[in-house]
């Protein structure tokens, strides 16, 4: 029996499937950015970027870049028809004030109770940088994490307690990895989806106890 991990694009497509029409969505830098490529074109889904736009479109054609129109990663983007610009006060009111339906963030670690660590490794030679991660984590209605199931060294990223500095406590509701989709519930982890060919027991071995199979 061999399990085939989901690719980054398959993970992004899996997240995109769960985003309903009409949702206001913020996609974090890195892996979550890929989700935009898989959103259905026939549905209205509003992408928010912390630097002041709603209705973010894809990257412009070469030569069409505008240095005044960028995303949170400072890359050139476009605005869809009907999109809007606003200042940082409004943008962070949207984030902190519970107006964003879903945010998808990368993570170093997520605890089984939904604590998120994704901004700082805490190592002495690194320069800390938090950006808007803490505001999104406390403010979005649903915080989804998208990450590899294991670190490059093969250690689980879903942990009983985060060892890295927290971004926010008890904020994550769902985790998408290259092996599974798991909900965080008051009873513990709950399995939503698993890659083809991976026995449940093997998943538990690299995840910790999974309380429920949906």
């Amino acid at each position: 029996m061999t399990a085939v991990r989901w690719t980054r694009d398959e993970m992004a497509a899996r997240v995109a499937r769960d985003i309903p029409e009409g949702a206001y969505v913020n996609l974090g830098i890195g892996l979550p950015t890929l989700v935009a490529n898989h959103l259905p074109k026939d549905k209205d889904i509003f992408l928010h970027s912390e630097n002041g736009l709603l209705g973010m479109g894809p990257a412009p054609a070469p030569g069409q870049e505008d240095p005044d129109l960028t995303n949170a990663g400072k890359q050139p983007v476009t605005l869809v028809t009907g999109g809007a610009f606003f200042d940082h006060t409004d943008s962070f009111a949207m984030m902190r004030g519970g107006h964003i339906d879903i945010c998808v963030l990368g993570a170093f670690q997520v605890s089984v109770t939904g604590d998120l660590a994704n901004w700082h490794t805490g190592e002495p030679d690194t320069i800390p940088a938090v950006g808007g991660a803490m505001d999104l984590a406390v403010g979005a209605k649903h915080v989804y994490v998208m990450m590899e199931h294991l670190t490059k060294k093969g250690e689980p990223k879903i942990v009983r307690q985060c060892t890295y500095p927290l971004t926010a406590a008890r904020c994550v509701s769902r985790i998408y990895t290259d092996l599974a989709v798991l909900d965080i519930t008051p009873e513990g982890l709950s399995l939503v989806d698993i890659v083809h060919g991976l026995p449940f027991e093997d998943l538990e071995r690299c995840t910790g106890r999974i309380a429920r199979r949906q």
Partner: protein
Amino acid sequence: MADIRDGSTILVGGFGNAGMPARLMDALIAQGARDLTIVSNNAGNGETGLAALLKTKRVRKILCSFPRQTDSYVFDALYRAGEIALEVVPQGTLVERLRAAGAGIGAFYTPTGHGTILAEGKESRTIDGRGYVLEYPIRADVAIIKAFKADRWGNLVYRKTARNFGPVMAMAAACTIAQVNEIVELGALDPEAIVTPGIFVHRVVACPERSRGVA
């Protein structure tokens, strides 16, 4: 720029290079003020704008949300050499601390950062079952921002995502200086579309830029 004193706290607009008042940064460097505290979202990109100011070593401390970027090597080197102090502030808290200064608010409770190392040493409080952290305003001597167009009264409009910190920083400083593409006649800006009213702006400097196919 002439009256900016040594030891001033200066707000610098921009999110990366979008909205960065690079020409006024050059003017500040030429003016020579030192021992500055800078408040800006990032800690400079490449070697222009804020990065050029940092390179002069006239900045004692910087408050920002996201100093580390792929092209923040000027700041990175100063930080690692212990030549600049850093206060990392979550972006929404940075914005709200500026807004509080501009709006006359003494302090506020925010859920952002509660239970993290950025809340250590700060007063916290539970309101309706949720944890909040007490944060104080950031008041500044000067704000240096970039807008698109201004009129003689200091009314400003911005361009696309270059708006970012401009409006909130304009409110938060004793003296706000805006670098703009163009200064237009009074009445030329649609009153319904003015983003920053002139009461928040003290000086405007026209620094025309290459046309970008204005939208």
